[in-house]
């Protein structure tokens, strides 16, 4: 008998003895705890901004692609850096031209293959990426692994993430409800910069991943 | 309309052998508020120490005897949360004979810890009296976490007008007795009671009040051995003394 069969048989035998825990509500029962609150756009933006700061992330806003490009360029130069790796996506595309024009060299990981790709991205200080969706009540960025390069989201020390205001959802329940089942199966959720408290519970940012995470909210 | 509260005493073995005063004071206080007290002859132990040590088959006859003895009483009251928790909750883990299953359920609904009975059943939470000292309160684990009783003792303490009640840090921190744990893991138990005593000392209280003699015995033992100033007092003793009973 193979392992699978043996394990399943062992489980079936074990479950022959019924539980004597009292009955409890089936998890499908709707409850307030899993509800999706009706939040206005401004409220979502405010929540997202406050939560981003609470998790030691940074927050900037832009009313247009041009404004975003300007602010991002300034962040890159301050880093200090003259180049950035970029993820694919419409928000990044919208700022790319202006950034390049401003003298920031943009490196698209997809233009490189295999080891060359990750080694190149790992050397670049700043990553400019976008999150197709974000959760307001925890400032969580949601990125589906849909074929895009993911390396700019976690190899750089400084990650600047573009988020569109209209893509904000209230909470994780709404996030998973809205995402198509195929998309949410391969997903990276990011809430703030990487951190550790493994030494004497002292919080330090920038463990193995980014040390700074800047969310740039696009209002248009 | 006066309802006569008839109370059957459940005397924990620790009270019987080591600290009868707390149980006697409980009797005095209950009588003072108008309850009629019955002492059921032949009572011994509910079986908790053996149960906590992992013995079940051996204590079944003891538990059955207890159930037979007490289940037809209107109310059974003990000056101990751990004893009441044993009967109210853990008796259901025992394979007693089927004929007693109904009685066991009935008993669980009629057995009370002393402060619970005074406050929740008799509706008395401010008995007055006088005790012009600073006191703090230790939440015994079974009383607090198995039975959910933590407000009632505090109400009774605050019900003494001239008492000064201060909460210690982490009042619900285990004192480290745990029955046989206290000698199976004695150094660990001592480390735990030492910590509790330091918290009592830091509170500035002259007395540490508790509702379980086992905890109090443990805490008192450490306080005395180390020449610390605070003293322990069972809540029944506190109430009796404050009322001059």
């Amino acid at each position, binding site marked *: 008998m193979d*392992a699978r069969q043996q*394990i399943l048989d062992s489980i079936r035998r*074990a*479950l022959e003895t019924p539980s*004597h825990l009292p009955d*409890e509500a*089936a*998890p499908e029962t709707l*409850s*307030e*705890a*899993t509800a999706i609150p009706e939040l206005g756009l401004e409220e979502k933006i405010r929540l997202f901004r406050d939560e981003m700061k609470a998790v030691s992330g940074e927050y900037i806003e832009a009313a247009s692609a041009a404004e975003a490009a300007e602010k991002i360029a300034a962040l890159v130069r301050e880093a200090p850096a003259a180049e950035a790796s970029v993820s694919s996506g419409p928000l990044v595309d919208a700022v790319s031209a202006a950034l390049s024009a401003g003298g920031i060299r943009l490196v698209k990981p997809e233009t490189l*293959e295999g080891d060359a*790709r*990750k080694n190149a991205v790992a050397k670049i200080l700043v990553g400019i990426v976008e999150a197709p969706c974000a959760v307001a009540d925890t400032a969580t960025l949601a990125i589906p692994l849909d*074929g895009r390069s993911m390396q700019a989201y976690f190899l750089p020390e400084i990650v600047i993430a573009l988020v569109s205001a209209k893509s904000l959802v209230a909470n*994780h*329940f709404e996030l998973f409800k809205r995402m198509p089942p195929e998309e949410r*199966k*391969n*997903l990276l*959720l990011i809430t703030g*910069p*990487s951190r550790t*408290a*493994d*030494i*004497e519970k002292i919080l330090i940012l*920038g463990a*193995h991943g980014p040390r700074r995470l800047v969310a740039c909210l696009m209002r248009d | 309309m006066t309802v006569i509260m008839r109370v059957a005493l459940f005397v924990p073995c620790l009270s*019987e052998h080591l600290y009868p005063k707390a149980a*006697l004071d409980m*009797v005095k206080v209950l009588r003072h508020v108008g309850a009629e007290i019955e*002492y059921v*002859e032949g*009572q*011994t132990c509910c079986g908790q*120490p*053996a*149960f*906590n*040590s*992992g*013995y079940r088959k051996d204590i079944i006859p003891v538990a059955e005897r207890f159930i037979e003895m007490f289940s037809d009483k209107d109310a059974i009251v003990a000056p101990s949360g751990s004893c009441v928790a044993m009967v109210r909750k*853990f008796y259901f*883990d025992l394979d007693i004979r089927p004929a007693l299953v109904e009685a066991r359920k009935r008993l669980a609904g009629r057995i009370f810890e002393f402060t619970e009975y005074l406050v929740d059943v008799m509706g008395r939470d401010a008995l007055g009296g006088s005790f012009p000292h600073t006191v703090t309160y230790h939440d015994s*684990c079974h009383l607090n*976490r198995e039975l959910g009783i933590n407000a009632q003792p505090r109400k009774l303490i605050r019900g003494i007008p001239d008492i000064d009640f201060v909460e210690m840090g982490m009042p619900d921190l285990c004192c480290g007795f*745990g029955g*046989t744990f206290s*000698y199976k*893991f*004695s*150094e660990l*138990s*001592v480390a*735990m*009671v030492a910590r509790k005593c330091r918290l009592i000392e830091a509170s500035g209280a002259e007395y540490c009040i508790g509702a379980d003699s086992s905890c109090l015995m443990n805490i*008192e033992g450490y306080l005395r*051995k180390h020449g610390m100033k605070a003293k322990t007092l069972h809540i029944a003793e506190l109430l009796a003394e404050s009322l001059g009973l």
Partner: protein
Amino acid sequence: MELRASETKRYIKKALKDDAVRDAVDKATQTALAKRAEKVAINPFWEELRKLGHAAKRAVVERLDENLARFETECRNNGMTVHWARDAAEARSIVLGIARENNVRTVVKSKSLTTEEIHLNKFLIDEGIETLETDLGEYIVQLLDQIPSHLTAPALHLTRKDVGRVFHEKLGVEYTEVPTELLAIARAKLREKFLAADMGISGVNFGVVDSGCCVVVENECNARLSVGVPRVHVAVMGIEKLVPSFELLPVFLKLLPVSATGQKQTVYVNVVGGPQRSKSGEGPEQVHVVLLDNGRSKILADPQLRETLFCIRCGACLNTCPIYQQVGGHAYGWVYMGPIGATLIPQYLGTHEGRYAPFTSSLCGACRQICPMSIDIPHHLLKLRNRVVEAGESMKVERAGIAVWAFLAKHPLMYRLATWFPGRFQKLLKGSFPAPGYSAERALGRFDDKGFRKRFLELEKNSR
């Protein structure tokens, strides 16, 4: 370090004398508790989340065979390879097989207690495969050749000086005890490994049954770097680690970080649903899930103790346990420690090796109070104490004593007589009745010379 659960009494004695460890443990647990309390206080749905979590786990566990089969099907549909391991040896051999097939020379691991449980690291290293822990706490503990002392904070028992020392000795760097500098050292050393490793091994926090994906949560980004960069990813999952659906996943994504570290969310949530390299040119070409039994199906057989499989490994029970707070995690002698560990040790390791574990508790119940899954740990410890006794593992002296006590408890006259003796005896001793161990640091009360009954009857007489 080779620890044994049966040696726990010795470890406890030792821990009680180690002020440095006790201090570190005390500070760390109090910090963790305070942070958790803050987040719980601002969540009006906390108790409801706990109920939902319990109900969801119960639903999964009570039909575990169906759920595992479904999970397997969904994982396969997602292009993952699913393996079944009956025990630790089989699991190790499966992982080695995958490594050999893929010419793996270096492995990076994200924190997984399941892989500690099956002693995977040493096994792979002995087979010539470089196996590196990458979670900072685990990395430190691995350098010290120790096992983690906490479920979520592996190096909780260490100070910065300890870390500085081992980095200096084992990594050949200049001594520093500045935490940011220590992290920088680890980051640099591990970065090169992440980029060069052939295989990443992770655990699984939550396997989503209806979607066939493995969820790995973390803060350091080391799991991302382990599961998202090397060409092979192996996820080792205890069979109980399932959750029903994405609808309920957020419940667990909230309960775990709040309970473990006082965070609303962990920094990273990696949802792994299959190999990515053909789609994006990066990430794993192969994703393997190793479903591990290793005693879990046996635990399932007890309808009460089944609840111990609901654990999501947050470590909150450790933080709040007055015993853990005194002695730390190594005192328990196994990879699962603290209150939940005390329930798992006798179940996984047997009543002989685990004969002391269920007694390493005063049954205070703080663990049940804090557990996000509402596991009734004290109740389970009581049952396991009974199991130890029924297995004949209690001391003969105690068994004899209990038999005597039970006899006396049924014969009230003899019961009272039995205490008359110690009462008399102690008068001869001119002091308290000796109880070695107990009375080393505590004055023992005197046996009352009359006993309650006599005094009560006197009271009755006097009041008439």
